[in-house]
């Protein structure tokens, strides 16, 4: 842990967003993770994305489970709501929170252990519900907090720090999400913020469940020769499948949108995910195309927004819930009373 808190003094050219806040206002406590942890870079990317989107800190809910990754919400947006749930249960807590108050922006941070081992079932159901949230998996392929055992994301043949080779097949969160019907699927790398920040912004703007698998090397237990999730290995097998910009609604320039040869996905808030480069014959709204591309590039770290579909209703739309938070509804509306209940029960007799 650093010896001092990051000094509050900042560069004079620091810009302010629409709310008049600087990026420093989106920081949290000092990280207690190992120096050089990929998670800290993702924290920095989240900080930038939320700052650039001018998300009001008090309208953000940060949720996590257990693990190194799940410690990180403490390290960004100190002024937001936060919930550090039981191991793997973050999707369930997020579902409940969203049900109660749909007006907040939900951002979940999980890891490969939290999401793909103990919490796998919860993740699958959150995808099915198309819960409106950004779900980040900080994927280092190792149980860092318990000193370096293989996780469910470890590749076959990847070596532990002591030299042992992993034999079990990994769960790929991207393929899993695609197969379960996820509506926004992306992969990125903690060491590539130029790609990661626009993806996170698009994920936040997405209507429904946006899952971003971020390769995030563990410097302490998984950054050695023979690891497939090290900085070096990730860079060596890096495949940028798609390149995209996030064009916020406010700065939309009609003439630019829909230019020749460009593919755009218009998000529900009017912002645009503009793809500046896509593989030939690749349709980002075609689930099978994404799966085919992944299959064709097995062994590579395929990154970018791989699939996006804004047409599927999210949880509240499916359930036809009111537009306002449940807490703001009058009690009589929320609870029709014993007479109504008796009448309902009578119908079932």
């Amino acid at each position, binding site marked *: *842990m*650093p*010896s*001092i*808190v*990051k*000094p*509050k*003094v*900042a*560069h*004079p*050219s*620091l810009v302010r967003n629409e709310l008049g806040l600087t990026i420093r206002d989106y920081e949290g406590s000092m990280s207690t993770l*190992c*120096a*050089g*942890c*990929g998670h*800290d*870079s993702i*924290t*920095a990317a989240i900080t930038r994305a939320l700052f650039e989107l001018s998300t009001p800190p008090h309208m953000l809910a940060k949720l996590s489970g257990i693990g190194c990754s799940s410690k990180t919400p403490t390290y960004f947006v100190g002024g937001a709501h936060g919930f550090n749930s039981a191991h793997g249960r973050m999707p369930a807590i997020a579902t409940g929170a969203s049900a109660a108050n749909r007006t907040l922006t939900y951002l979940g941070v999980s890891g490969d252990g939290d999401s793909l081992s103990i919490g796998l079932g919860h993740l699958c159901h959150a995808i099915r519900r198309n819960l409106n949230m950004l779900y980040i998996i900080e994927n280092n392929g190792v149980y860092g907090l318990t000193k370096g055992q293989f996780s469910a994301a470890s590749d076959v043949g990847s070596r532990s720090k002591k030299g042992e080779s992993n034999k079990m097949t990994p769960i790929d969160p991207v393929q899993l999400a695609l197969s379960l019907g996820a509506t926004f699927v992306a992969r990125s790398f*903690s*060491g590539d*913020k130029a790609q990661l920040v626009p993806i996170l912004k698009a994920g936040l703007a997405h209507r429904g469940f946006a899952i971003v698998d971020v390769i995030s*090397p563990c*410097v302490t237990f998984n*950054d050695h020769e023979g690891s497939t999730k090290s*900085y*070096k290995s990730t*860079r060596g097998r890096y495949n940028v499948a798609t390149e995209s910009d996030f064009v916020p609604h406010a700065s939309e320039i009609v003439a630019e949108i829909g230019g020749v040869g460009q593919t755009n996905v218009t998000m529900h808030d009017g912002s645009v995910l503009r793809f500046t480069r896509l593989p030939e014959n690749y349709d980002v709204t075609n689930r099978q195309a994404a799966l085919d591309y992944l299959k064709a590039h097995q062994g590579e770290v395929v990154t970018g927004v791989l699939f996006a579909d804004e047409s599927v209703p999210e949880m509240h739309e499916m359930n036809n819930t009111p537009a306002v938070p449940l807490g703001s509804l009058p009690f009589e509306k929320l609870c029709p009373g014993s007479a109504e209940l008796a009448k309902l029960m009578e119908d079932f007799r």
Partner: protein
Amino acid sequence: MNPSDVGNPGYFHKVVDCQWACPAHTNVPEYIRLIAQGRFTDAYMLNRQSNVFPAILGRTCDRPCEPACRRGRLPSPTNGNEIENPVAICRLKRVAADHKGDVSARLPKAPEKKNGRRVACIGAGPSSLTVANDLMPHGYSVTIFEKYDKPGGLMRTNIPSFRLPEQVLTDETDAILNMGVDIRYNSPVTSLRAVMDEGFDAIFVGSGAPRGKDLELPGRHDVAADSPGGIHIGIDWLGSLAFGHIDSIGEKVLIIGVGNTAMDCCRSSRRLGGKDVKVMARRPRAFFKASPWELEDAEEEGIEIVINHAPKRFVIEDGKLTGMEFDRLEWDADAKKSTVLDTVIIPCDDVILAIGQDNAFPWIERDLGIEFDKWGMPAVNQTTFESTRPGVFFGGDAAWGPKNIIWAVEHGHQAAISIDNHCQSIPVTQRPEWGMNLISQKMGISEWSYHNDYNPAHRQKMKHVDLVQRFEDLHVEVELGFSAEQTAREVQRCLNCDIETVFVAPKCIECDACIDICPLSCLTIAKDGPEEEIRKQLSAPAINPDQALFASLPLPQTGRLMMKDEDLCVHCGLCAERCPTAAWDMQKFQLLISYAGTPAPHTTCVAA
């Protein structure tokens, strides 16, 4: 882009802005840390190495270090739209001097056995004294010719005792003279040839710029000799005051000119009985020569500073000065052109002229091989300080006109090197090289040997003696010096710019941790290319083109470059703390400066 050459002592020297700006390259951050540790004597001795007169300069220095201070470029911790004030470097120097213990055992000593070389210095001001300070320990016999009966030069005659107590001055001049310097008081040199005829091996002219400029306007010479008031030349008047020849002045005094001498004249006038003292300036305030703090101190004492008034004539009635007539001016934006609005007469009893000073060398014969230019200034080599006659050197104000004490000291150091070379038959152009130490300050994980936290404290305000007490006696020192609490706060404002961020490219794994943590957005990993392309990629724009932009060797994984804009780095060490591979390290930079007769310094680098 070419990688930065951090092996050259000049690279990190430039990062230490205060030390770079100081003509004598005083190791400011190190002495501030010594003060923070309560090691006042060590802090004093470190100062003395380079600036020779820490107690004097701690009160009077023109402090080129302070405008250069990095702290003065950072946004204020309480109001981001304002810029911070620099560290009070000068007044911390005084703290070291005020609280030092007995330094006598640590002062340089002259050896019993002399080397047989004799050097003459003309004038006992700061440059000559520095020459003596540097040469005496190496066995030289130094003779100083001084026209007054006390040493110090302009430090004694022009700086009033309420700013520089006489004892402080005497202590530091004695430290040099007591090495056995042959000082000849009351010995104005009237002929350089006569000095040469004494057979010195080298002669150093440190006679200052002793002639105050006059103002030839109507009425200048019409004041009757027995009139109580009159017209005075500033530096002569200050000299008369210093030697006790005058003890009063009229109630209404006008000072012409607005440099630091004018400030000393007006504040002295207040103490001698001046009640209505005005400083008359031709130009607007932004174009004043006086240091802002000296203006403030004068105004605090009730002195009025009148702008846009150009002197026109002295008003003399019956042989008595009764006032002065001025043109009231209106200036254009950059104060280049003026138009006269009207004229005014301001009544006064005395006028003090403080409009500059000149060198004067009527005592140097023009057939000695020493060339002078058309303004009567000697031709002096900028590096060696040698005149066109080998073995005759100039320094201080005598060389290129009025500067300030700290410049005179540096001239003395450089001239001493030249004199040493000259006497040892080494070409004077052969200057000794400088070295550096670069030593890791890592004590453990996230543990440094220095206090790395940024302290948001504001600059401490120097406390002054209250106004009534101040005017009771001419010699009451106005500044009280920092209290223990003020010192404790002020030392923590120093950003430790000498603790350098040293980067080793082959160790970097490009995890971005340093970039993410840097509070001032100094760092970027950029695609290699021409400098102007790289500048566009920086995390924050490099707004200060005078500051270095560090470029690493290509990084191992991607071939990109680690870039650092040195401009606003607060040397907090977080980049090194968050670096998993110790590619970044915090290493203390110590500039090893060569002086006359010292062995060549040996550069030492110790990584973590």
